[in-house]
C-alpha cells in the first residue's frame, strides 16, 4: 500500500505529479491511499516510487476534466480520479463509455463543478469600496459549493479588467490589482461592506421586472437555489414579492377598464389609409402600390412586393419569374445568384443592364420554409394571372419595343397562355399590344443544371438569345 499525502485540497498540480509517478511506477489504484492535509512533509509515505517515469499519454479531454473535478469537495475525489486515469491508460475508449459507472460519476462530478463555476460567475455581487488612483475598487463575498476560485477567477479578470476587485470565499480569495491576478487565503463575510449605493436601484429593478401574473417559484429555485440567496441582495425581496403577487395580479384583472387617456388623440399616430386606390400613373407610384398588393395570398409570407426597375423609356423589357430570396430581402429584381448570372450574360451579349427595364411576372416571392432557408416554389397559373395586372401596367408605362421573357412563368405572364419555351424560342413573335417578344430560358435554369458541359452550351444559347434581342432593338 502506498500512501499519498496531498498538502492542500483541490491542488491539481500536486495531484497530477503524484498520479504521474504512481502511473509510471505501475501502482494499481487499489494499492494507493490518498490523504489530504499537511500532516507529513514528504509527498509519499512508506513505499518509495520512481522520481519520474515514462510519460503516459492520456486524452486531453480527460486531463481538462480532471483539472476541474479535483476542485470537488468530496474526499474520495483524488482516489476516484486516479482510478479513472489508470483505467484510461489501459483503455483508449474509456471516456466514450457513457454507461460505465466511473465515467458516469466523472461526468456528474464535472457537471457539478461547471455548474458551480457558472453560478459563481452569475451570483457574485460586488460592493464598491471606493476609488484609488482613478481606479474603482470592488469587493465581494461568495460561498461556492466547491473549491472553484482558480476556475472561476479568470472570468472576472477578462470581464473587469478596468477596475480593481477582490472575491473572498471561505477557502480562498482572488485579487485583481495593478492588472495582476493573485490568490490568497480564505476569509470572512466581515471583510466586505454591508451594502452598496446601487443596491436599492437593483432591488427596484428586480421587483419591477417581475411579472406577478405568472408566478413560477419552482422554476426560479431550480436555477437560483436557496443556498445562494443569503449573498444576493435582491433575494431579500423574494418573499414579499411572492406574497403580494396574487393580489397584484388579481387587481390587474379586476381593475375596471379606464377611459382612454385624454392625451391619446394628441399623441396618436394617424392610422394610414389602406383602401386608397392604387396610384399607377408613374413607375415610382406603381412600385409603392405593388408593395401593398393583396391580390393573392403570396403577400402574407413575403417581405415585400418587388416591382420592376429601369428607365421609363427602356426599349427592352426583361421579364423574369418572381423575386427570389435576395430580391425579396433587398426589394430589387435580379440581385441574387440568378441576377448575377444574368448580369454576366447581358454583358457578354453587349447589353447594358442600366438601359433595360427588368421585372418579374409575379411580384411576391413564393417559397417553402425549410429550416433556415427558403426553397423557391413555382408560382401557380392563378398567381401569375393575378399579378398580370401589374405587369400590364408596367408594359403600358414603359412601352418597350421588345420584351424578353425568361422562363415559362414569364411567358405566361406576358401572353396569358401556357406556351412551351421550346416551341417559342428562336423566333421573334409580334405582340397584340404592339412590340415584339423573344422567349428564352430563366437564368436559374442554368444554375440548377448538374451537368457542367450542358450548362455551358445552354448558357451560350441564352447569350445568343440576348444578342438577338440587342440586334432587334438596335
Amino acid at each position, binding site marked *: 500500500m502506498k500512501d499519498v499525502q496531498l498538502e492542500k485540497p483541490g491542488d491539481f498540480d500536486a495531484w497530477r505529479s503524484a498520479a504521474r509517478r504512481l502511473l509510471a511506477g505501475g501502482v494499481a489504484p487499489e494499492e494507493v491511499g490518498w490523504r489530504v492535509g499537511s500532516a507529513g512533509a514528504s509527498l509519499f509515505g512508506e513505499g518509495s516510487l520512481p522520481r519520474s517515469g515514462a510519460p503516459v499519454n492520456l486524452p486531453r479531454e480527460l486531463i481538462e476534466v480532471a483539472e476541474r473535478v479535483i476542485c470537488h469537495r468530496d474526499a474520495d475525489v483524488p482516489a476516484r480520479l486516479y482510478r479513472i486515469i489508470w483505467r484510461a491508460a489501459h483503455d483508449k475508449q474509456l471516456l466514450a463509455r*457513457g454507461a460505465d459507472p466511473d465515467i458516469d460519476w466523472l461526468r456528474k462530478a464535472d457537471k457539478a463543478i461547471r455548474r458551480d463555476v457558472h453560478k459563481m460567475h452569475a451570483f457574485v455581487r460586488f460592493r464598491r469600496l471606493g476609488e484609488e488612483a482613478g481606479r474603482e475598487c470592488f469587493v465581494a463575498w461568495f460561498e461556492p459549493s466547491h473549491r472553484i476560485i482558480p476556475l472561476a477567477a479568470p472570468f472576472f479578470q*477578462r470581464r473587469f479588467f478596468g477596475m480593481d476587485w477582490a472575491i473572498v470565499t471561505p477557502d480562498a480569495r482572488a485579487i485583481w490589482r495593478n492588472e495582476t491576478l493573485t490568490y490568497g487565503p480564505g476569509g470572512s463575510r466581515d471583510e466586505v461592506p454591508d451594502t452598496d449605493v446601487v443596491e436599492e436601484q437593483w432591488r*427596484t429593478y*428586480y421587483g419591477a*421586472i417581475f411579472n406577478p401574473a405568472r408566478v413560477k417559484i419552482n422554476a426560479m429555485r431550480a436555477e437560483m437555489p436557496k443556498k445562494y440567496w443569503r449573498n444576493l441582495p435582491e433575494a431579500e425581496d423574494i418573499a414579499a414579492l411572492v406574497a403580494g403577487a396574487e393580489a397584484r395580479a388579481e387587481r390587474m384583472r379586476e381593475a375596471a377598464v379606464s377611459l382612454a387617456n385624454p392625451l391619446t388623440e394628441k399623441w396618436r*399616430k394617424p392610422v394610414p389609409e389602406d383602401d386608397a386606390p392604387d396610384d399607377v400613373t408613374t413607375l415610382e407610384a406603381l412600385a409603392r402600390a405593388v408593395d401593398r398588393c393583396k391580390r393573392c395570398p403570396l403577400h402574407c409570407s413575403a417581405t415585400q412586393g418587388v416591382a420592376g426597375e429601369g428607365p421609363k423609356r427602356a426599349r427592352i423589357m426583361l421579364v423574369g419569374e418572381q423575386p427570389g430570396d435576395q430580391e425579396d430581402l433587398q426589394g430589387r429584381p435580379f440581385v441574387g445568384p440568378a441576377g448575377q448570372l444574368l448580369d454576366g450574360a447581358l454583358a457578354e451579349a453587349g447589353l447594358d443592364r442600366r438601359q433595360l427595364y427588368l421585372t418579374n411576372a409575379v411580384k411576391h416571392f413564393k417559397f417553402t*420554409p425549410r429550416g433556415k432557408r427558403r426553397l423557391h416554389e413555382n408560382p401557380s397559373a392563378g398567381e401569375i394571372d393575378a399579378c398580370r395586372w401589374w405587369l400590364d401596367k408596367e408594359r403600358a408605362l414603359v412601352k418597350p419595343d421588345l420584351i424578353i421573357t425568361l422562363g415559362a412563368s414569364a411567358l405566361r405572364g406576358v401572353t396569358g397562355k401556357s406556351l412551351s419555351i421550346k416551341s417559342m424560342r428562336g423566333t421573334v413573335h409580334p405582340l397584340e399590344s404592339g412590340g415584339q417578344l423573344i422567349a428564352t430560358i430563366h437564368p436559374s435554369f442554368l444554375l440548377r443544371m448538374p451537368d457542367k458541359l450542358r450548362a455551358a452550351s445552354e448558357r451560350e444559347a441564352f447569350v445568343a438569345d440576348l444578342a438577338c434581342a440587342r440586334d432587334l432593338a438596335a
Partner: protein
Amino acid sequence: MSAKPILEKLAILADAAKYDASCASSGTVKRDSTGTRGIGSTEGMGICHSYAPDGRCISLLKILLTNFCVYDCRFCINRASSNVERARFSPAEVVRLTLDFYKRNYIEGLFLSSGIIRSEDYTMEQLVEVARLLREEHRFQGYIHLKTIAGADPGLVALAGIYADRLSTNVELPTEAGLTSFAPEKRPETIRKTMASVRVGESGAIEAAKGRLIGKARPPRFAPAGQSTQMIVGADAARDDDILKTATNLYSAYQLRRVYYSAYSPIPDASSDLPPLRPPLMREHRLYQADWLLRFYGFERTEILEGAKDGMLDLAIDPKLAWALQRREIFPVDINRAPRELLLRVPGLGTRAVDRIVAARRLGRLRLGDLARFTASVKKLLPFIVTPDWRPGSLTDSAELRARFAPPAEQLALAL
C-alpha cells in the same frame, strides 16, 4: 418629467419592459476587456445573473428608454390611450445605470427598447445613441440588445447592428388579421422589411469578412448574436398552427436565432377588447417545445400538428409524445441500431442523450439499465424502444398509452 427621481423612472420603465420575454445574452462573439482596459466581456454562452419569482432569468438590464408611445396597440401597457404613468430616461441615465449594474456583476449588459416617440427614425436614433455612448465613450464590451423599431430607416438599423450584439423586431401577433385589429398602426410587411434589412446587414458583414483576406481594415461585425422576435400568444384568435407557420416562415426568411412566445398576460389598465385572463402558460410552454422540435429534432410543422385538434397543440402531453402516439407504426425503435434521426423522435430522448447514446453504442450494446445514465426518464422511453433485454410487446399499441402519460384530469383543469 425630468424631475422624476431615477428610482421612480427605473420602476416605471422596467415594469413597462417586462412583457418582452427575451433576456438572452448568448450567441455572440467572444470578447473581453483585456485589450480595451475597460470593462465588459462576452463568452458566447450567456449568464443569468438572477431569477425573478416568475421563473424568468434576469440576464440584462431590460428597460424602455421611454414608455410614451404614439402607437395604440391594444395588448400593450404603453399604448397611447393607456393611463399608465409615463417616464423617460435620457441616454446618459441609461448608460450610467448599465455601467453601475454591470460593475457590480448584476447583469450581462443592456436590452433597450422604447415606445415610439415623434417618429420611428427619431426613436431608433435615440436607442442607437445609447449603444454608441456605451461602446465608444465607455469602451463597454458587454452585451447589448437593441430593439429595432419597425419602419426605421435601414441606415439606422445598420448602425444599430454595428454597436449591438443582437437586434430584435417583434412581430407581436402571428396573423395579419390579429395585427390589423389589435395594433392598427403596425403593418406586418413593415416589420418583415425591418427584419430583412437586419439580414441584409448581416450578410453584408459576412461578405466583408470574406473580403478581409485581401483587404486591410477589419470589417465591422454586424449584430453577431443575430436577430430574434416575439409573438404574443392568447391575445387574439390565432391558433398554434398559425403561430408555428409564422415562426417557420420567419426562421427561414430572416434566419432568426430565436422566436419567443409570450403568453398574453393581463396588463393593468387593459383595453376592453382583450381577455382579462390568466396567461396561458402551458400553451406557451408547448409552443416552445414545438419550436425546439422544428429547430433541433428534424420535425416539420405539419408533422407536429398531425394529431392536433383545430390546429391547437395538446396541452396535456408534450408535442413529441403526441406525435409518437399518432405514429406508433414507427415504434418501437432499437436503441442500438436506429439512426440518429430516428432516436431523436423517441419521446424522452433529448439531443444530448441521443448524441451520447450514439457514441456509447459504438463501444458495446446498450442494455435497458444503461439508459438511466443518459436520460432521467427511462419510464417514458419504455413503450417506444427495444434493447437486448427489453421489448415493449403490446405496450406500444396499447389504447391506454396516452393515459399513462397525461396528467390526471384535475391538473389539466388547472393548466387551462
